[in-house]
């Protein structure tokens, strides 16, 4: 009977310990995976960075497009997506610098873009995307024409 109590006690303790261990992780932002494609004048754009700035505030999510123009966003861990809610979007493609070839380490050089500059800032691009869980892939279309 005594050994039975021992075992009961052990089981209870382990259960208590298991309960203690749950629910202790830090509460991070609510993210949802976001995938999509970037088109410039209807053609997939490779090497462009898509940035999602949460309008309610938060860390931006970024993703780099591949040869097919496809991207997947990352905020904290690879592929975890963007903040749920409305995000303002920027798209930039940095060209191999010609001016930075002559500067010293740490010296400021111009940003040279191979994408329309009016999409370069999330504050000014005018593109907003409402991020939701389970959302379909987004298509981001750009044009060189001024609007």
């Amino acid at each position, binding site marked *: 009977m005594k*050994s039975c109590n021992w*075992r009961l006690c*052990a089981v209870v303790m382990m259960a208590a310990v298991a309960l203690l261990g749950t629910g202790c992780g830090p509460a991070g932002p609510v993210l949802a995976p976001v995938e999509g494609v970037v088109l410039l004048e209807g053609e997939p754009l490779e090497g462009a960075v898509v940035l999602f700035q949460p309008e309610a505030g938060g860390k*931006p999510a*970024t993703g780099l497009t591949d040869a097919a123009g496809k991207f997947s966003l990352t905020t904290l861990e690879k592929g975890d997506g963007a903040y749920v809610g409305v995000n303002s979007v920027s798209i930039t493609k940095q060209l191999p610098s010609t001016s*930075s070839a002559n500067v*010293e380490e*740490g*010296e400021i050089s111009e940003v040279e*873009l191979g994408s329309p500059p009016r999409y370069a800032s999330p504050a000014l691009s005018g593109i907003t995307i409402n991020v939701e869980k389970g959302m379909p892939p987004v298509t981001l279309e750009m044009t060189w024409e001024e609007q």
Partner: protein
Amino acid sequence: MSRSSKGFTLVELLVVIAIIGVLVGLLLPAVQSAREAARRMSCTNNLKQIGLGLQNYHDTNGDFPPGGIWWTNSPGAANFARNRGSMLVYLLPFIEEKTLYDSLDLEQNPCYQKFPGGASVNGSPYIAGTVVSVYRCPSDPSPPRNEIVADGIQPGQLAMFSYAASKGPTRTGNNAAGSCPERAAYDAYNYSTTDNVPAGPFTRMGRVFTATMSDVEDGLSKTIFVGEVMGNCALPIQRGWAHSSNTQGMISTIYPINYDTCTQDLSKGPCAWWNNWSTEFGFKSAHPSGANFVMGDGSVHFVSETIDHWTYQRLGGRNEGEAASLP
């Protein structure tokens, strides 16, 4: 029953071992996090000393110290001799390191000055090989001295540091040898495109600009002055605390906190490379989920890496007219 009462059964022993295992498993992270908490306390205390040192420097000199006094990185170039070191040199008398400060000849470039008479301290003939404990965060995983050959100086001879002066939301450069495409995306957050008039309180161009308190229009308590960096994650730190181009006045808030640039291997991607001249110049620490900063009034704050990126820029900027409070 009489047989089992003489000792423990195998099951009972296994249960006891399992319980001990679980308890140790629970305790170990707790002990580790207590150790990290102690390291972090020491780390924030150092930042406090730096913040107070900056205040005292301003009292004495009428302005804040330069981020750096820099002409060129090239040791062969004539202008290299005109370099006059980083903020960490000028702060020494204000963090009780006056003896070390006095051992440097500031009529010359201080970065690779040697101890007089061929002396050597801890295997380094260089004055800048002296580890300044206030400049080191105990959580910083990088070794106390340089790991790579810096300007021909062997590893282990130049003392590194864990704190760097902020240039706020000012544009950065871009290394053509390893160009990070995200640099163009984060450039949208800048409030200044020149180091001669930085958006934050410090710049490597200290011969052109040093801030006074009246240059910090957004308020000293609302402007980031100094934050955390790691020697493993930005190559210039390997040149030691006395060098004019060692990240002091070069760290920009346009890159998110704890952006990982801690690889020396370019094949892992240019954005993660520690020598890309862009994302390497963001504040970063080994603390989970954020980094410590000292504001202009000497107050130290832990800022989460998920802080709103616009708010982070307003905290970094000294005069953008949109003073932000810490969240």
